[in-house]
């Protein structure tokens, strides 16, 4: 049976989403995308530096990938909505990752403003993927607001600290009837596998790949880990026990 994740009417067979920030050179991004086998790639929108080099990240992204511009830089719902309009006008489709941040130290998202922006943009037919701190009531509000998925953080952006919010994410997976995509904080492939084993629908990784010594190799490692974790979830891990339970028969030999 095909294992497909459907978001905004698109069928995804790969569950690793890739962020494109912080890479040591843009020129390696095509190889990173190839090794990660990702189908969804995030980008940001910024003012052009009139006196400097003009960067166009889109030149490095495979045309078959779904672009998911983020609203980074937004501090309010209103600013996030403005950025979403700009992204759509630029011809990048209608997927948008809502990211509203007022906290410069931990970069934690403003859940309240994020819900407001989600509500507005979902009504305008955007496929809205909000980045939030994991909280059941917030996630329920996002469902009502018309989100296409919920993207809880595992740890602060760029921290590489793994699933510090694991129990709260588990509750979202259990209770929320939308794809749950763990975004932010995943630092190692084992942590991506851990998220997928517990039933996350996908993970979004940027820093862990971009800042690895060899991002191209690390992209492949994350691809395998996400696949392994997903397969383990579908296979249904056996129960944990406190005491030992022999794997070989204990009778019928020597005594």
């Amino acid at each position, binding site marked *: 049976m095909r294992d497909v994740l459907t978001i905004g009417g698109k069928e995804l067979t790969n569950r690793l989403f890739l*962020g*494109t*920030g*912080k*890479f040591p050179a*843009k020129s390696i*991004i095509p190889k990173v995308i190839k090794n990660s086998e990702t189908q969804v790639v*995030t*980008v*940001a*929108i*910024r*003012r*052009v530096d*009139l006196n400097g080099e*003009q*960067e*166009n*990240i*889109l*030149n490095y992204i495979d045309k078959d990938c779904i672009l998911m*511009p*983020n609203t*980074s830089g937004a501090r309010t719902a209103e600013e996030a909505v403005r950025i979403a*309009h*700009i992204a759509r*006008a*630029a011809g*990048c489709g209608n997927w948008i990752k809502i990211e509203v941040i007022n906290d410069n130290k931990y970069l934690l998202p403003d859940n309240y403003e994020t819900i407001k922006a989600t509500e507005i943009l979902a009504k305008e037919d955007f496929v809205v993927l909000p980045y939030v701190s994991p909280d059941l009531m917030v996630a329920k509000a996002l469902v009502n607001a018309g989100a296409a998925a919920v993207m809880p953080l595992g740890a602060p*952006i*760029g921290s590489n600290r793994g699933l510090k919010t694991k129990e709260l994410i588990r509750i979202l997976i259990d209770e929320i009837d939308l794809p749950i995509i763990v975004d*932010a904080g995943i630092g190692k492939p084992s942590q991506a596998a851990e998220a997928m084993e517990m039933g996350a629908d996908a993970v*979004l990784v*940027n*820093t862990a790949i971009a800042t690895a010594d060899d991002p191209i190799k690390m992209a492949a490692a994350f691809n395998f880990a996400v696949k392994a974790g997903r397969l383990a979830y579908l296979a249904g891990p056996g129960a944990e026990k406190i005491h030992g339970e022999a794997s070989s028969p204990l009778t019928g030999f020597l005594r």
Partner: protein
Amino acid sequence: MQIKVNGQLVELAEMLTITDFIKSKNLKPDSLVIQYNYKILKREEWSNTILKENDELEILNFVGGG
């Protein structure tokens, strides 16, 4: 004539369309998104939009991000 581009005041010596201005700054137009006085301009509108005193222009493009 003064206009504001990406939040900074810019002095224009002559009448320019948005297409002219982009050329004068050696920007590649393909990937740009232009907001003109808070309104997103379609690409085909760039060449017939003449900049005037106190206009506000945002010239944006896509960069790496997570």
